[in-house]
C-alpha cells in the first residue's frame, strides 16, 4: 500500500487497513488488559518484537507457506477469541507466548513474498510501531475497567473473533488459503 508519505506511513496504513492484523491485536490487547498489568507489559513487548522478527524472517526467505499462515491466523483468532470470551486465567508467560505466536505469524504473513530492502524494513517498522500503540491502547482500556457491561462487551467481542476464526478455518478447508 502506497500512501505517498514514505514507507513508515505505508506500514502504518497497511496495519490500520488490514482487519486480519488489526482485530487480533485489539482483542489480544483487551484480553491482556483484563488479566492485569504484568500480562499486558510482557505481551506488549513480545507481540511487537515478534511481529518485527516474523516480518524480517519472511523477507530473508524463512517465511511459511500461505496455507500455514492462513491456518495459523484462523487458529490464533479462535484461541485469542475464546480466551477473552471465557476470561481465562492464563499465566503472564503463556500470555506473552501467545503474543509471540501472533506477532510471528502475522508479521510473516504481512511480509511474505516481499524482497528485503530498506524501504520494506521501514515499512515493517511502521507496522510494528502501530502494533505497539494499538495493543497498548486496547490493554489500557481494560486494565482499569470497573463497569461490568464494558467487560461483557469486551468478552462478546472475543466470542465474535473466535466465531470469525472458525469460519475462516472452514473456508480454508473448502477453498484453500485466504492469504496469498
Amino acid at each position, binding site marked *: 500500500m502506497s500512501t505517498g508519505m514514505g514507507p513508515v506511513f505505508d506500514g502504518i496504513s497497511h496495519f490500520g487497513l488490514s482487519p486480519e492484523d488489526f482485530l487480533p491485536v485489539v482483542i489480544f490487547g483487551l484480553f491482556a488488559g483484563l488479566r492485569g498489568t504484568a500480562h499486558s507489559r510482557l505481551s506488549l513487548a513480545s507481540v511487537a518484537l515478534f511481529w518485527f522478527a516474523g516480518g524480517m524472517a519472511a523477507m530473508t526467505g524463512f517465511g511459511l507457506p500461505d496455507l500455514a499462515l492462513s491456518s495459523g491466523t484462523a487458529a490464533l483468532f479462535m484461541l485469542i477469541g475464546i480466551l477473552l*470470551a471465557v476470561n481465562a486465567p492464563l499465566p503472564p508467560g503463556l500470555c506473552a507466548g501467545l503474543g509471540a505466536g501472533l506477532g510471528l505469524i502475522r508479521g510473516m504473513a504481512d511480509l511474505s513474498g516481499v524482497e528485503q530492502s530498506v524501504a520494506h524494513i521501514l515499512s515493517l517498522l511502521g507496522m510494528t510501531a502501530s502494533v505497539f500503540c494499538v495493543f497498548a491502547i486496547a490493554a489500557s482500556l481494560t486494565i482499569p475497567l470497573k*463497569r461490568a457491561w464494558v467487560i461483557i462487551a469486551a468478552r*462478546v467481542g472475543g*466470542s465474535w473473533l473466535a466465531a*470469525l476464526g472458525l469460519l475462516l478455518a472452514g*473456508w480454508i478447508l473448502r477453498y484453500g488459503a485466504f492469504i496469498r
Partner: protein
Amino acid sequence: MKPNDRSLLAVAAILALLAAALPGDANAHIVKGEAVGFFSGFEHPISGLDHVIAMVAVGLWGAQLGMPAMWLLPVTFPLVMACGGFLGLIGFPLPGSEIAIALSGVCLGGAVLLELRPPLWAAGILVGIFGLFHGYAHGAELPPGQNALLYSLGFVLATGLLHATGIAIGLIHRWQWGRLALRGAGAFVLCGGMFFLWGALL
C-alpha cells in the same frame, strides 16, 4: 472528565477507528453469488427472514431471562453458529437443517411468549442446537470469493447485531406493559416460525 467517561470515550474512538479501517470494496461489478467483501457477508444473515426472527428472538429471550443469560445466550449463539458454519463449509452432512431453523422460530418464540425460565445451561443448550443449524445453512451456502476475512467479519457482525437488536427491544421487559408487548413479540416470532415450518415440511 471521570475515568469511566474517559474509558467510554476511548472505546468509542477505537470502534470508530475500527469501522474506518474496514476497506470499502467497490460495489461496481459485484457478481451475484460471490463473496466479495464485508457488505456481502453482512447481508447474508439478514437476507432470510427465518434467520432474522430466530436471532432477534435469542436476544428477546435473553433480555427476558435477565443477567447473565442476557449476554451469555448471544455469546453462545454466534460461537455455535460458527461451528455449524464450519461443518457446512467442509460439506459435513446435517440433514433437516431447514426444518430445525423453522423450529427454532417456533421454540424461541414460544419461550418468549410463555416467559419460560429454564436453567441457564438448558437455555444455552437449546440456543446452541438451533445456532448450529442456522450456521450450517449459512456455511453450506457460502460462495467462493475474493475476501474470506471481510465476508466472515460482516457475517458475524450482522448476527451479533441481530441479537443486540433483540436485547434492545427486550429491555422493555422492565415495565408492566413492556412484558406484555414482549410476549406479543414472542407470539409474532412463533407465528413466523410456524409459517416457515409449514414451508419446510411441504
